């Protein structure tokens, strides 16, 4: 049994249904906005993820907001780190800084390819991938050394999470990928958006054997365009059941644009209720980038 370093890990292991949410650091120099979002979410979630150059767009380094949220808001952060933009030297140095600043949860991601981003001419790095990054973090935490075995002064206390896509086809391949990382030693899983309860159930059934807490990704949509983007273009692919699509489209037709988001809040809350009732999900991870104000509403409606 590994030591527990964070509130998130404590809650995940306690059997409580855990809520986490996600915010973007943004292409900004304004930390106040991030702190405000953190304050708004504080009483609703156990931890807040801060994304690392999401969609390959150059944002503020997430380490800074991750730290500030913990210091000024008093809620734990999940520091996300991708392999796309930094080689192992840069990642090790960022992780050392994160450990020094009291970050206790890290989510590792390979990262969308640079061609999707706002500087598509960039050189993609991928010196590490999400599996080798888990391997690095385990070395740092368990052995107090970096990848090459160089000794680190002081303790490194991280819980390491991975992303997974329950919508993946073929799912068997996704499960094998997770198995590879479970063997390396992961602490939790936060998934890509799930709209279809059956997709969540099948995924949870498949990963049950790993005995790793899973936070199912919940993504409210605020427009029909966004819904279509998830279905057609989102990397990895997302399934949205036909009847759910119809409910959103009907809301748009009957009550206008704003009704889509209202309907989506309702649908998200229903999904969460169903997950709480009928699955062994450890909780949910709510992603509502740019409209985080809906997160408290979803959580209120779901509990």
């Amino acid at each position, binding site marked *: 049994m590994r030591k527990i370093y964070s509130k998130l890990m404590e809650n995940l292991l306690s059997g409580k249904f855990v809520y986490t949410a996600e915010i973007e650091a943004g292409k900004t120099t304004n930390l106040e906005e991030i702190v405000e979002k953190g304050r708004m979410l504080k009483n609703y979630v156990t931890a807040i993820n801060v994304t690392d150059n999401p969609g390959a767009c150059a944002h503020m380094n997430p380490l800074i907001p991750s730290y500030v949220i913990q210091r000024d808001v008093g809620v734990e952060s999940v520091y996300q780190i991708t392999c796309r933009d930094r080689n192992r030297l840069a990642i090790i140095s960022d992780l050392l800084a994160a450990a020094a600043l009291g970050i206790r949860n890290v989510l590792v991601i390979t990262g969308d390819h640079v061609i999707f981003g706002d500087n598509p001419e960039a050189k993609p790095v991928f*010196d*590490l991938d*999400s*599996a080798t990054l888990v*391997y690095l973090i385990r070395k740092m935490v368990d052995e107090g050394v970096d990848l090459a075995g160089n000794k680190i002064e002081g303790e490194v206390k991280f819980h390491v999470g991975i992303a997974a896509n329950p919508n993946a086809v073929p799912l068997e391949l996704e499960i094998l990928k997770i198995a590879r990382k479970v*063997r390396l030693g992961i602490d939790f899983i936060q998934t890509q958006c799930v709209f279809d309860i059956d997709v969540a159930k099948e995924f949870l059934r498949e990963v049950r054997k790993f005995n790793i807490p899973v936070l199912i990704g919940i993504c409210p949509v605020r427009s029909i365009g966004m819904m279509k983007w998830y279905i057609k273009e989102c990397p*990895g692919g997302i399934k949205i059941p036909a009847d759910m699509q119809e409910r959103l489209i009907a809301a748009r037709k009957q009550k206008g644009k704003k009704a889509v988001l209202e309907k989506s809040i309702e649908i998200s809350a229903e999904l969460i209720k169903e997950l709480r009732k009928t699955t062994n999900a450890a909780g949910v991870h709510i992603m509502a980038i740019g409209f985080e104000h809906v997160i408290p509403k979803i959580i209120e409606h779901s509990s």
Partner: protein
Amino acid sequence: MIVLKQKPLDWILEAARNYDNILIVGCNGCSGIYQVGGEKQVKNLKMVLEMAFKIRFGKNINVETCTLLRQCDRDLVASSLRPLVKRIKENGAIISLACGAGVQTVSNVFPKVVVIPGCDTLFVGMRTKELGEFNELCRACGECILFETGGICPVTRCAKGLLNGPCGGMREGKCEVDPTRDCAWALIYERLKAQGRLDLFLKFRPPRDHRVSASPRVWRGE
């Protein structure tokens, strides 16, 4: 094979315009096989150059030709080209229709002669479709893992070069970067599954030692 393509004729003409004696050197290796710089292409280029110089620059030039078995063979280049290089001594240049290795072999053997590359070297690969589509297959990374990946190279064929793929962008077996392209790791999964070797898919591959493939590489034999 090394996959290459001929440079635009205008580019070659511009590079060669100030010379009066030109030796076109073809290569029957990769370049010849892919019909970019073999015997036939050398002959064609000679004809086109003579004509274009006359029409465009109003001058007659002397064009010699030679196609080697392999242009990356130093001894072959030295013995075959020496007499021809003498013939283009007066304000002469060589146009090489080989890959970058061929161009540099010629240039190393005859350091005083200007060598114009007539081709752009693209990658190590093969023709995968009849209609002249070529695919990159090998990055010459120096640490072959093809035995473990069902004969499909993820270092080359995964857009992110992942050793522990696929990434989260794989969508129904296709690559997030180009949905018309197969995800290399989905192919590896399918092939290992067909071979009954899925245990190898589960295998964790630690980070690469990039010293193995740091340029410029030298191999001194063993």
